[in-house]
């Protein structure tokens, strides 16, 4: 059990800086998910915590101690890899106990730890099997078992569910959640899947192009994104964006449709900005607020709700409506949005524009 801190950490490969000044504080027992598109540096960040990569600048602390110069094996962490990285020639038992055997732990104690972990992960019947005789989900569990038996200060997960099929992924996600509730070990989990991030994280770190864009509880990040990137990355289907131009106290978003600019933004807003609307914030009809005339392209009826793909002034927009409303293709419909639900971003920097005093 330990907290983890990154203080001003950068990482360069040759002359390429791939991580720009990362500052992260992870609390004891916390489950933190690092999420971002591929190539954003999230795995590199995790590997620096593990000690598989060295930080170019800055300090990495585990349990309050600087570990920059400490070997991975002495950092008291355990890692679960995307491709499981099980030793193919060893049985499940040997795989799980390998780290303990290297540390010359007492045999009976190893036996006890492996048996306990195997029981938690429902692997007890498979201890004498080789990895190739197991299914993908079981292999993933063995990889987790190998981490658990070490009883480390922190678990590091590097896209552990990416190699599993969709159904198994959901199941393993729930198991990881359950496991964390039982063990309460500090965990850092890297994924590109925002659903995994939303469901698993106590707090999540959204990364883009080597920069940490936002850190916060999933629902906070969802409701209150700091930038257009975060707003677009978190949420499925993702937020709709419309380019807007300031016209007096309003913003024109095209074809004579205007949305009001909040009074707190009147002074600070730049002439061109981007308006963001979550699909679920569209309401069918002219119920009030800003009204958008949208032409329906297709409708995906998902049962509980329907996703209406529309076009507004050449910009595709997605609206999430009640599952029993099934607009037909080609229909021209009016959707309204509560102005309080609108998000505003600086068109140039992508930063969120917040009303003064809010």
């Amino acid at each position, binding site marked *: 059990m330990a907290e983890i801190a990154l203080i001003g950490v950068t990482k360069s490969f040759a002359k390429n800086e791939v991580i720009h000044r990362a500052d992260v504080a992870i609390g004891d027992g916390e489950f933190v998910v690092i999420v971002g598109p591929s190539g954003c540096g999230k795995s590199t960040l995790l590997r620096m915590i593990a000690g598989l990569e060295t930080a170019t600048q800055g300090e990495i602390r585990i349990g309050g101690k600087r570990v920059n110069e400490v070997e991975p094996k002495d950092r008291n962490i355990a890692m679960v*890899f995307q491709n499981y990285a099980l030793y193919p020639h060893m049985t499940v038992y040997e795989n799980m106990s390998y780290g303990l055997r*290297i540390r010359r732990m007492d045999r009976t104690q190893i036996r006890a730890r492996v048996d306990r972990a195997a029981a938690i992960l429902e692997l007890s019947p498979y201890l004498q099997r080789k990895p190739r005789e197991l299914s993908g989900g079981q292999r993933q569990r063995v990889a987790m078992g190998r981490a658990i038996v070490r009883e480390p200060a922190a678990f590091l997960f590097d896209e552990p569910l990416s190699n599993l099929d969709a159904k198994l992924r959901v199941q393993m996600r729930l198991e990881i959640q359950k496991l964390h509730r039982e063990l309460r070990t500090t965990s850092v989990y890297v994924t590109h899947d925002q659903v995994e991030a939303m469901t698993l994280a106590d707090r999540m770190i959204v990364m883009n192009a080597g920069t940490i864009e936002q850190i916060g509880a999933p629902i906070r990040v969802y409701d209150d994104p700091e930038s257009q990137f975060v707003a677009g990355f978190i949420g499925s289907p993702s937020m709709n964006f419309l380019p807007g131009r300031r016209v007096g106290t309003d913003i024109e978003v095209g074809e004579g449709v205007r949305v009001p600019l909040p009074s707190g933004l009147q002074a600070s807003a730049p002439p061109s900005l981007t308006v963001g609307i979550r699909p679920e914030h569209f309401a069918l009809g002219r119920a009030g607020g800003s009204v958008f005339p949208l032409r329906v392209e297709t409708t995906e009826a998902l049962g509980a709700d329907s996703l209406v793909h529309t076009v507004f002034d050449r910009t595709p927009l997605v609206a999430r409506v009640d599952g029993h409303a099934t607009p037909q293709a080609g229909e021209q419909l009016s959707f309204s949005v509560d102005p309080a639900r609108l998000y505003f971003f600086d068109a140039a920097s992508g930063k969120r524009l917040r009303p003064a005093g809010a």
Partner: protein
Amino acid sequence: MKNSTTALMVENRPVADFIAHAILIVGVIVVAFPLWVTFVASTRTFDEIVHVPMPLFPGTHLLENYHQALVAGSARGSSAPVGTMLLNSFIVAVSIAIGKIVISILSAFAIVYFRFPLRKFFFWMIFITLMLPVEVRIIPTFKVAADMHLLDSYAGLVLPLIASATATFLFRQFFLTIPDELVEAARIDGAGPMRFFWDVILPLSKTHIAALFVILFIYGWNQYLWPLLITSRESMYTVVIGIKRMIAGGDAYNEWNVIMATAMLGLMPPALVVILMQKWFVKGLVETEK
């Protein structure tokens, strides 16, 4: 009724079948006939062999010829017993095979898993020696071996043949296919480099080692030029050299029956190694346990 297309293709083409089989049978005969003649000659007496036409069916002197070869050697050429030669050949072939595997697996391990100055340079140095066969460097090698007093010794027979760029290269290629995560998992588990080598690399290389052993054993067993240079005492002859030394003069002078028995004895161990290790050999060539 067979309705699979392959079954249909095989059926009903007697002419093609006949031609295919005829070619295969001719091929087998071409390869096997010299071996058969060798065997026949090793069961006859000297007089029967030199009689024209030479008989094509085994005679009754099998035990006699083989006994003479194993214990006494030829009465006319070299008289070293083949038993000793077989032992020498075996020691040399096994030492070369094991030595090559040990050296090359370790150097491949160093080249793939360690970052050290001039790593690329050393890799290319090893790689370039692939272009230098024994024959090219044989005179300087002989000089070095002579200066080190290695003539007529097992060390002299084995050492110069042990360095192997080919095997190093093969192991390197195999190691490159082992996922990096395995190394990282081992580092986090706390395994040092040599521990990782023993616990992970070596067991994973098992089939490759077996396949290489077969190839290298035969390579060592069949060495001709180098043993010919470095051995002058009969007690250090290998079988291949022994056969050559038994052939002393003109056709009619040599004891062909004993020489042929020696040839049969000399080709049996490599054949046995291939047959016994065939399963491993094929496995090592076609699959990797990953």
